[in-house]
């Protein structure tokens, strides 16, 4: 590790690689089981499988579970939790623009005036 740090600094990149966080294997295993459990939960609350029906909240519940799973993957497996905050900011920039796209599309869809064709 020390040798890597010297090499990185010699190339002018000594600002992060040397301090890479090592995640214990036990954490990875816990996250794996959490992901499997959340997948099972997704299936369990799916109406065609279990008959569970929360009405208009069905999609919201599915998205919430998916968001928790994605956060675990990003934070632990991809190391965003331990990385520089700049990387987190870059990630959320992407999420922001995704929200922009979805919100404007929804704005259009839910404000359309449906006119019956007379043709």
């Amino acid at each position, binding site marked *: 590790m020390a040798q890597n740090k010297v090499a990185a600094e010699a190339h*002018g*990149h000594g600002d992060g690689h040397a301090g890479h966080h090592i995640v214990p294997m036990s954490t990875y295993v816990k996250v794996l089981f959490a992901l499997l459990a959340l997948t099972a939960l997704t299936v369990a609350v799916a109406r065609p499988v279990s008959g569970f029906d929360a009405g208009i909240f069905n999609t919201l519940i599915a998205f919430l579970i998916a968001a928790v799973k994605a956060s675990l993957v990003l934070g632990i497996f991809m190391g965003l939790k331990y990385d520089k905050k700049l990387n987190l900011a870059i990630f959320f*920039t*992407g999420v922001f*623009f995704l929200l*922009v*796209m979805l919100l*404007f*599309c929804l*704005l*259009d*869809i839910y*404000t*359309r*005036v449906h006119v019956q064709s007379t043709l």
Partner: protein
Amino acid sequence: MSATATAHTNDNYLNHEKGLWSWLTTLDHKRIGIMYMITVMLFFFIGGIFAMLLRTELIAPGRTIMGPETYNRIMTYHGTIMVFMVIIPGIPAFLGNFVLPLHIGAKDVAFPKLNLVSWYCLIVGALVAFTSLFYNGVDTGWTFYTPYSIRTQTGVTFMVVGAFIMGFSSILTGLNFIVTVHKLRAPGMTFWRMPLFVWGLYSTAIIQVLATPVLAITLLLIACERLLGVGIFDPTLGGDPVLFEHFFWFYSHPAVYIMILPAMGIISEVITAFSHKTIFGYKAIAFSSIGIAAVSFFVWGHHLFVAGQSEVAGIIFSFITMLVGVPTAIKVFNWTATLYKGSIEFKPPMLFALGFLFLFTIGGVTGIMLATIALDVHLHDTYFVVAHFHYVMVGGTLMAIMAGIYYWFPKIFGRMYSQFWARITFVLIFIGFNVTFFPQFILGAMGMPRRYYDYLPAFTALNRISSIGAYTIGLGFLIALGVILQGIFAGEKAPANPWGAKTLEWTTASPPPHDNFAVEPIVTAGPYEYR
């Protein structure tokens, strides 16, 4: 810009290694830039031939040289080639690749292997796209609007998968440039000492990375819908065709800025170099690049004013679109102020830069007109729109590419070119362009719809003028090709800094050595220390 680097050796990137294999496996950003140049010029030639065929068909009403189905296909290939294979990779991948590391005093880009992969993505994507020719061609237009693109019995699947692969070329180039700018600047090269072309490329890269994946997924959804019958955009399957337009333009409108932002960067370099005067409002121009990139993501709905989008969304998009005019005008006013009291030299790059100012301003102002809903309802899908976006894309981006080629030609090839014939190309292209596209504003205002194979006899005279203009542009570009080839093979040897410019690339030899600089440059001042 002060630096301590001048090479005194015959070794350069062109003769450092020899043979075709050394080019196809090169990791040198300069050689990859040249490979992009050759590729883009080839595609431009093909797309240009299609343009000539279209204008020949439209020289008179009724059938002239082809039938309507062939016309639809040629129009589609002209648009697709020019957008995905010429204008989008044109500046970032060709001139950006060559100049960016030199501009910031780096030896190469951050990920040289990824850089080569980007070029192969473009080639493979283009080959897949051209495979559609063997499957009845593509007749959807470059926008692939649904539900027609899902139902047509043509090679749409190959074309969209090809565009999907070419998208990766764009994403990887953008990623490479962002990391290069952040990590590989020479000592002393702060963000506020970066040349404005770098700011333009940096802003472009942000759009490439953020927006291109949306297009990639959207085109893949079309392929899925065609192959698997999944109902996403086809209303008969429960889909929403307007949703396709949302997704498509979420990328394709920012893509206009992928085309124009680096072009604006070139104009900043050329205008200050040939005015021999410090650029006016450096920070304002730099910030306006980021401003345009940011606003570009909020305006796509102006393409959908008459597509079935809600009135509420239309009004909001119309208002936001007007905002683009602010950072754009900041640039134009600052360039004009730079010219004021400058020692202006009308060398070929400067002529093209001034041409850009004139044409792009017309393109921009007509864009504001089209952003006004009430006017757009009348002008939508007419030749007015065709004229508008050609004034932006050709009058803007292609003029800037020509300015950039003529500006950096001595650095790239170590040779000079014929100044006289280069000026002739400007005259032909500039006049030809206006003769081609200005009448199309009038045709559009008179109600001639775009993309139509035929037209009313009342439109004949203006169409004929437009076609003659197109041939003039074609002649101009053919002469430009001759100027470039003559310069490469028989031009005078170029000095390191023939224009007296101040940015870092002019401190190294022409052509640059394999590692760009004999000694690592140390930057002690801004990029435009003229007077």
